[in-house]
């Protein structure tokens, strides 16, 4: 029983490679954001910057913050927290009619 528990906590063998790969992608995405900011796409410039920021955050959350190997409880917690943040932003949008 306790052996099972220990194995569950330790989970997979840790490796350096995946994190270095994620870091390279993050550096690349930073380059893309800076390059894209120089081009004027009008209204979609903000959308592009935010989309890249969301992708970068997803990578940090999944790999660096180990959500990938955490239990479903963790994913649910993070999901609910983000959902409520989104709700507050969405409600604000109804007041200010951004579109």
């Amino acid at each position, binding site marked *: 029983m306790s052996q099972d528990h220990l194995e569950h906590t330790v989970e997979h063998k840790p490796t350096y490679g995946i994190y270095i790969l994620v*870091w390279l992608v993050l550096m690349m995405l930073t380059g893309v954001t*800076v390059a894209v900011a120089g081009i004027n796409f009008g209204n979609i410039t903000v959308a592009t910057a935010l989309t890249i920021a969301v992708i970068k955050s997803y990578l940090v959350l999944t790999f660096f913050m180990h959500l990938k190997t955490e239990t479903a409880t*963790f994913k649910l*917690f993070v999901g609910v927290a983000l959902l409520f943040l989104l709700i507050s932003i969405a409600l604000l949008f109804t007041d200010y009619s951004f579109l």
Partner: protein
Amino acid sequence: MSTVAEHTIEHVHRDDIGSRLGMWLFLFTELILFGGMFIVYAVYRYTYQSEFHLAAKELNTSIGTLNTLILLTSSLTIVLSIVAIRKNNKFLSVFLQIVTMVLAVGFLINKYFEWNIKIHHGLFPGSEILLGKGNGEVIFFGLYYVMTGLHALHVMIGFILIEVMTGYTIKGRINSTNYVRLEAAGLYWHLVDIIWIFLFPLFYLIT
């Protein structure tokens, strides 16, 4: 009932999953703190679009980009220090934690120069030059100082946390079987990184 209690006492006295979950709950409060500020930013950016663009031209994109690369790299070094301690490589783990702290200091030094130049140009809350500008620009710089300032404060707190963890690692309190404290400090550091991932395009890249 008693067998359950005995069973728990007999083995590990800690709950790593519970500890990490607790850390995540704390991070959610941070999310609300910064989330609220991002909402304020969204409203005023919408209200004063052209003035925000004008004001953002004053910011130094190169320093912003450099700081982004520094923080992303420090996120890598702290996560690798956890891998190192799990592989029982104490020396490498401590080394990577020190690299993380050096990068944190580098970030703050850049921030110091950046703010120094702004203040030298008379761009600080309540300055005559700034008050002579439009409302949108005053609000932009107000948000810029509060949000990047609060973020810099988090970088300092993160630095202290990692420093404590380095002490624990050297003393052996953090080791290959008990590294949840280092993981918690790492989670905090990554959150600081995520906040910067959003601050950077929203303040430095809107020109």
